């Protein structure tokens, strides 16, 4: 069910298999960490924000078996496992600090990034930036040794002059064509500056490609449409990553010694049209000039959940090179392209 059992903690002696070399390499940083801190980082309490989202629940489901998990979300956590402590509070409130003050937190996993283009700009902006800033302040004040931010490969932005595979050094240009993305870019930048300002905390920024699964995000919702509209004459290559592969990347990022920015991609890329036909959906090619106008109109009439600038994602490439995650984190994708695509139609079980 979990398929993640063989990700062992660094203490476990590796039995000299082929992957032990890679594991040893990923432990390079871990050797410098004092024993007690290492202990704390591998078994201490993890705060997970946005735990009530579909991805958040999956992360909690995998994490709570091995260590204590504290949830932070403004939504209620229905069907919560007994051993997960949940605080239903707004991230912008002062109360967030109490969560950190009263217990020794050993890691913060920030999944509570809001990206709902329908929401008002101000709410969006303060939630994402103020909320995250509050969390980072708390992490600094109470010496949290690990901060993991789930950003997204979308921060690079789909552009006609994108390299086929963007490295972690590529500029974050998503907001140039789609200004609602600026929150997400700034959030990523905030984590980057925290990384440099506080070297005692291991900051990890994960930038996964399109996450597919039972999650409710734009790419999964798009592929769930009964007839999938595409832009006539455009068929960009796309990358998808299974939601559980993202969960395993988060678990790898929590290991002591891991720090920095990592792109996460799943199985090899394929053309969008091929992905749609593998799902057995019909395609509806629309001329791009018309599509932009129609989607914009539908958006304003609240008939679609896709804002018009998102059309660029099915027009240009926005793919990442995840060689660094595979080499340094030891990340590998477990789900092939068929399973990853099929996951959008799965029944939700958590």
């Amino acid at each position, binding site marked *: 069910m979990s398929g993640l059992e063989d990700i062992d903690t660094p203490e476990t002696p590796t039995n000299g298999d082929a992957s032990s070399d890679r594991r040893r390499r990923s432990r390079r940083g871990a050797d410098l960490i004092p024993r007690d801190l290492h202990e704390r980082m591998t078994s201490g309490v993890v705060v997970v924000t946005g735990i009530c989202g579909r991805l958040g629940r999956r992360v909690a489901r995998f994490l709570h078996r091995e260590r204590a998990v504290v949830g932070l979300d403004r939504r209620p956590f229905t069907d919560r496992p007994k051993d997960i402590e949940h605080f239903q509070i707004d991230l912008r409130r002062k109360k967030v600090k109490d969560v950190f003050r009263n217990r020794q937190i050993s890691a913060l996993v920030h999944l509570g990034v809001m990206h709902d283009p329908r929401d008002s700009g101000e709410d969006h902006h303060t939630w994402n930036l103020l909320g995250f800033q509050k969390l980072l302040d708390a992490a600094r004040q109470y010496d949290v040794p690990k901060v993991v931010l789930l950003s997204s490969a979308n921060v690079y932005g789909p552009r006609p002059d994108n390299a*086929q595979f963007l490295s972690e050094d590529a500029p974050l240009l998503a907001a140039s064509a789609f200004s609602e993305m600026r929150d997400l870019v700034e959030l990523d930048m905030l984590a980057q500056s925290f990384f440099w300002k506080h070297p005692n905390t291991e900051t990890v920024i994960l930038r996964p490609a399109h996450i597919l699964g039972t999650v409710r995000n734009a790419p999964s919702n798009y592929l769930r449409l009964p007839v999938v509209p595409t*832009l006539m004459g455009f*068929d960009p290559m796309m990358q998808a990553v299974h939601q559980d592969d993202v969960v395993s990347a988060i678990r790898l990022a929590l290991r002591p010694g891991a720090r920095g920015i990592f792109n996460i991609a799943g199985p090899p*890329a394929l053309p969008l049209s091929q992905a749609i036909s593998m799902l057995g959906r019909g395609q509806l090619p629309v001329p791009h000039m018309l599509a932009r106008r129609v989607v914009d109109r539908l958006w304003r009439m609240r008939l679609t959940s896709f804002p018009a600038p998102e059309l660029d994602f099915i027009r240009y490439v926005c793919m990442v090179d995840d060689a660094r995650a595979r080499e340094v984190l030891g990340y590998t994708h477990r789900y092939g392209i068929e399973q990853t695509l099929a996951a959008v139609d799965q029944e939700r079980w958590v």
Partner: protein
Amino acid sequence: MNRQSALVRLSDVAARDVFPFARKLLKQTRRVVDELALRTLGPDFEERVARVKARYEGMGGDPFGLDPDFTKYVSMGAAVFHRLYFRTVVHGAENVPLGRALLISNHSGQIPIDGVIIAMAMFMDAEPPRIIRAMIEKWAQTLPFISMMFNRTGQVVGVPENCERLLQQEELILAFPEGTRGISKPFTRRYQLEEFGLGFMRLAIQTRSPVVPVAVIGAEEQFINVGNLEWLAKAIGVPVLPVVPQLFIPGGQMPLPTRYHVYFGEPMHFDGDPDDDDSIIEEKVWLVRQTIQSMINRGLKERKSLFF
């Protein structure tokens, strides 16, 4: 004469005369088409396609979206231009090394037919058949169908990261360092190379790839350009806007059927520091540029006629 007998007689005629005639006509057309296809595509076209396809399938698919089946149909169309319309003569295809290489060519002809012809030369006349990966203008990515066709035939956006990745994949890169300055040259400056960009040389040094100079003769005369409207190009957001009078003559929309000559030169090897100063890189680029210019000059001297 009732209606029934009229129908019977009509069917008699059909059975005796019309059908055999149609069949004969069909057979004859098929023979002509087959013969023409053989002349255009050559006897080993299918085999060449299969060899190229096997290479990319062995790699587990091309990450840039090259689709060998789609490329097959595009190259069947391009072969008509290559073999029948422009009747290309390919010189020195054996000079192209087997592994990674950068084909550096002069750019001319208002629309990039020269790239297609070089690609066809490498696909249909070289041994083994190769698919070239041209570095294309990013503007082409914003155009419907054209962008899709480029992607599926393996052409990529001209950014250094893509070029580097492809060279590590042991591919054959085609680049036109003159860029749009070269392709839209007015007729008075035909066969005079424009300034070269330096990027290709840095990549060649960095990835230790040989540079193959390529000269294309015949493309400059296909569309006669009397000048460029720079201000209008800027206003409507296209890279260049050449004035080509023949486009206004009915039937002049097709390029003139000049005979193409493609010369592949000896591969050149460069070493040094890829991050060297511009002035040092410029010297190496100058060497390539002069080689291509002298290949062009020699080719023009050898050319007997524009059209034959």
